[in-house]
């Protein structure tokens, strides 16, 4: 092992400790939880902060009181709002992330059984034949197949790449743990994966979900591509997934810690599939450590927490890895 490798490793470990310290410092007073930037609860920062603090080492005991801030914000229908007390309504992205967090940290299934059921049974707008007809007849500027649907950000809207990816990661984990079964969930998982594949950019990668508008291909986004790759690990045999991995590995010079952390967490699942992944991950972790060297300068707590997760050296309990 070279001395420079050891030095980088030590540096990453120091930065990770600082990040964890910063997460603890940002914990909201009172009911707890974390906010993106201010003092209002956010489901994404809270979920990611809990994962960063408690998912390593794997199998460590997480007390119920540590999960309480997240569980306390669950709505009566089993889902979560993205922010605040729930008045702004349900977010499927936030809900999938919260359930994945609870499963990863070993919460009792009673806390999230209703959530899994709600995630399986919720439908985006294009699940309705009337909306599909509209897309087929008049609303045709964006190229996509409306018969393949995933998950929307919020109710009464259509599917998008990021919430669909997180829902697939979460439901994939639930299936593996025997928490969901049956034809309905199988169909939902299959349709969700098909929707992601349908929305891929022509040269690989994903953006919010519009690959081709007025015949012009739009550019992929780093974070959306990483999340979709995490969800589609078992579709690596498909050229579009392989091309997308290549695309994202070429973006490790990305100047944003949020996107780079997602790349590290997603690409880690492909280490066994390709020889170029591990060296790229190593470089990406060094770069990430440099970007978040001063965690107080990072405004969004989600970024602080994601970076802490991505800098974990032996990522054996990666919360976003879909395993067989």
């Amino acid at each position, binding site marked *: 092992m070279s001395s420079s490798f050891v030095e980088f490793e030590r540096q990453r470990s120091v930065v990770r400790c600082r990040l964890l310290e910063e997460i603890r410092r940002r914990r909201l007073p009172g009911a707890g939880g974390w906010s993106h930037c201010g003092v209002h609860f956010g489901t994404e920062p809270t979920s990611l902060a809990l994962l960063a603090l408690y998912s390593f080492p794997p199998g460590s005991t997480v007390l119920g009181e540590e999960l309480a801030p997240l569980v306390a914000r669950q709505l009566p229908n089993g889902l979560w709002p993205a922010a605040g007390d729930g008045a702004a309504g349900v977010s499927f992205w936030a809900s999938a992330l919260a359930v994945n967090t609870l499963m990863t940290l070993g919460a009792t299934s009673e806390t999230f059984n209703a959530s899994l059921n709600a995630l399986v049974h919720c439908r985006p707008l294009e699940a309705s034949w009337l909306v599909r007809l509209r897309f087929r007849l008049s609303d045709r500027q964006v190229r996509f197949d409306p018969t393949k649907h995933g998950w929307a*950000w919020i109710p009464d809207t259509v599917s*998008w790449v990021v919430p669909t990816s997180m829902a697939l990661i979460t439901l994939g984990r639930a299936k593996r743990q025997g928490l969901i079964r049956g034809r309905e969930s199988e169909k939902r998982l299959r349709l969700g994966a098909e929707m992601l594949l349908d929305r891929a950019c022509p040269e690989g990668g994903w953006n*919010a979900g519009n690959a081709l508008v007025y015949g012009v291909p739009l550019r992929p986004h780093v*974070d959306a591509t990483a999340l979709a790759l995490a969800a589609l690990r078992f579709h690596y045999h498909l050229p579009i997934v392989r091309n997308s991995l290549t695309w994202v590995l070429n973006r490790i010079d990305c100047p944003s810690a949020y996107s780079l952390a997602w790349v590290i967490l997603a690409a880690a699942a492909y280490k066994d599939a390709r020889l170029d992944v591990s060296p790229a991950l190593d470089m990406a972790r060094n770069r990430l450590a440099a970007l978040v060297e001063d965690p107080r300068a990072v405004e969004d707590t989600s*970024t602080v927490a994601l970076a802490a997760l991505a800098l974990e050296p032996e990522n054996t309990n990666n919360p976003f890895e879909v395993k067989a």
Partner: protein
Amino acid sequence: MSPLTSRRVFGGALLARTGALAVRQLCSTGFLRDRRRRRSRVAILHGDSYDGPLDRTLIDGLRLFDLNLRGKTVLLKPNLVEYIPGAEVNTNPRLVGAAASAFLALGAKTVLVGEGPGHQRDTVLVLAEGGLEAELRERRIRFVDLNRDEIRKVPLQTPFTGLDCLWLPRTILTSDFVVSMPKLKTHHWAGVTLSMKNLFGVMPGVAYGWPKNLLHWKGIDRSILDINAAVPAHFVIADGIIGMEGNGPLHGSSRDLGRIVLADDPVAADFACSRLMGLNPLRVNYLAQAAEFLGNGTPERIVQLGEMLPATVRPFAVLPAFAHLRL
């Protein structure tokens, strides 16, 4: 003109006219409050390039309006969509930086820059790649990610989307003086994207997602009207130094205009910008309606400061669906 284009021109013009008449009816029956001021002011300034003395140009331009900024918190809201190398997609960072310095020079207590990009979730990435992060760092101006700001519920008093409220970022509601800083572009769904459409970017992604799809389903034109009625911008600085024509807002072609438009009324600003683009604002659906209750569009209610609108302009290229917009 082909028969199809003729039908589109006729249909588009009729739609905008009908919408405007419906809004006028709503105002006359008391369902909608007429918020127009007696007079609005618009200044068109020369700005040949982003390397010029923009700070000076803006200070001189803002002085024409005699604004009382003393002790106020000013929020600049540029249009940041995403970074595409070589494409003029976003409000130029140098103009944003110059505006921040100009407001501070004119007495503002604090200047913030805030935006919530609609498709790209990683706001930090858009800032860094587009050059705004470096510009603001150099000028020591704080940026607020409106997509992840704390949110507050604001009841709607206009009926266009049918929504009873909007969730809005705390920063926009607590700022004393909101400045919309659009880039002059054509838009493949709204016709043009100017200071009013730019306020789509204040809708927080944390509540509405990426993109803000609920508002698309409620209708882009209708959402623009409700948002602008709920969060009126106090001032406009529009980046018309280089605009975008054709398949905007992302994949159109750059178009040199060499102008910066300042106004104390977003509707008046968008009317002036449309005319600079060689497009008829009364045929832009949401602008025709906005001019009936939100702000001024008619020349007799607009005081023109600085230089006048050019007598002739080469119209911006538009997609066939918006052929009716050309003057």
